[in-house]
């Protein structure tokens, strides 16, 4: 398995040999920033295209196919368009909060994005409380949505914002508890540690029933956290026209659009990290030659492959289920997911203490 830290160390040494340490650091920081930005943009464009194609095939259509081969440049065209659209100046809004909201949304998703381990040795931020940090920053995004809705001085956006608040206070809990379940199992909060711990089998296999339950809860709660159907209440096209971002135009709206897809990636990335071993290849204890073959597949492919498969499932949700109503949404969380989660956590604790796992 290729370790990307070799590359980063090589660059580091090369830079340090030609310039003082602080200069090397500076250049490295810039490189990290640019790489992150590029990856972020490319992923967003890919995801927009991916979702459109996937939903088109669910709906017996073809989806974009005119712009470039198979329409792969469709989202690029959209990006150009959205970048040059007018930014409407509105009269009655709270200007500061209105402009702050897209920053919050993008920064939150960018920070969470930075925590993800894209491959062996390819991780920007690696705290020893990484997973905790990830949950913390990803919840900032909802704040952006709340502010966007509130500051727009529009009744639809206000309702959208309030809905997103209700959704946040509920599903944050499920995410927290299902992640907690896995932290109990892994015994560490460091992202590297969690991935390394899955060397001998992904948690979803080794943690058997509680891990599977936690995985399902995480999928549901993750879908809700990203405001995607069937939990797209803050946006609710057929109820609130465009929900919390009704008043946002041009690139302002583009940020929300971008962040929505990136959050989709982040949620699926975290799911693959916690349950499917992150960039770890599929290892089955005892099958040495099989494990060896799996090791030849680059770690980056593993990570993105898993993330995309989970994204596909989340997209599948969206295009299959009708939207929930706000009281049903809360009932689902507080009366079903929360008790289930607590029980699941307890079972997991017992399993860990008595070593009942594989």
């Amino acid at each position, binding site marked *: 398995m290729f370790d990307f830290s070799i590359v980063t160390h090589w660059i580091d040494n090369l830079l340090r040999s030609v310039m003082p340490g602080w200069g090397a*650091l500076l250049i490295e*920081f810039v490189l*990290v*920033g640019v790489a*992150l*930005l590029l990856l*972020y943009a490319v992923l967003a464009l890919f995801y927009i295209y991916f979702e459109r194609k996937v939903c088109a095939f669910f709906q017996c259509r073809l989806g974009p196919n005119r712009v470039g081969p198979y329409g792969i440049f469709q989202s690029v065209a959209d990006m150009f368009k959205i*970048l*040059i*659209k*007018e*930014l409407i*100046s509105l*009269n*009655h809004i709270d200007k500061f909060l209105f402009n702050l909201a*897209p*920053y919050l949304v*993008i*920064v939150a*998703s*960018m*920070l969470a*994005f*930075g925590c993800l381990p894209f491959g062996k040795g390819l991780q*920007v*931020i*690696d*705290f020893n409380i990484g997973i*905790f940090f990830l949950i913390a920053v990803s919840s900032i995004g909802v704040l952006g949505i709340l502010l966007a809705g509130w500051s727009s*001085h*529009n*009744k639809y956006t*206000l309702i959208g914002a*309030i809905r997103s*608040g*209700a959704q946040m*206070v509920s599903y*944050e*809990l499920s995410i*927290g*508890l299902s992640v*907690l379940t896995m*932290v*109990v199992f892994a*015994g*560490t*909060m460091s992202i590297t540690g969690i991935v390394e711990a899955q060397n001998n089998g992904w948690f979803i296999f080794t943690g058997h029933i509680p891990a599977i339950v936690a995985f399902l809860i995480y999928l549901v709660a993750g879908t809700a956290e990203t405001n995607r159907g069937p939990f797209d209440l803050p946006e609710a096209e057929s109820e609130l026209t465009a929900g919390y971002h*009704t*008043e946002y135009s*041009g*690139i302002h709206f583009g*940020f929300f659009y971008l962040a929505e897809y990136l959050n989709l990636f982040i949620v699926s990335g975290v799911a693959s990290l916690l349950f499917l071993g992150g960039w770890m290849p599929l290892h089955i204890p005892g099958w040495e030659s099989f494990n060896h073959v799996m090791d030849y597949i680059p770690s980056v492919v593993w990570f993105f492959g898993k993330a995309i498969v989970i994204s596909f499932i989340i997209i599948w949700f969206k295009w299959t289920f009708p939207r929930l109503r*706000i009281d049903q949404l*809360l009932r689902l969380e*507080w*009366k079903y997911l*929360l008790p289930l989660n*607590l029980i699941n956590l307890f079972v997991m604790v*017992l399993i860990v*203490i008595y070593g009942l796992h594989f």
Partner: protein
Amino acid sequence: MNSALFVVVLITGLALVGAALLIAGLISPRSFNPQKGEPYECGIPSRGESWMQFKVGYYLFAILYLMFDVETVFLFPWAVILKDLGVAGLFNILFFMVVLILGLVYAWKKGALEWK
């Protein structure tokens, strides 16, 4: 190193938004008319203020959420060292959790989990 990288990522995010806004601000067209800045409400002028007293039906959920979220924060450190603590650790935290779960059951019985 990590905290420095955290700042780098933060700045990257800010730079993305800032740069895109700058480009958009420079080249995007602009036009004005009296109706453009008004709130959009299906093509009809809005009636009165939008920032008015508005009934938020879920404040009880918010309070419950606070409780449980704080609980989760306490649980995380415990979760990491659970393997070392063993059964004793479980019972210590179980007492803490039971109190909270009783709280949830109480709220449920009181009907606080119904949307009103």
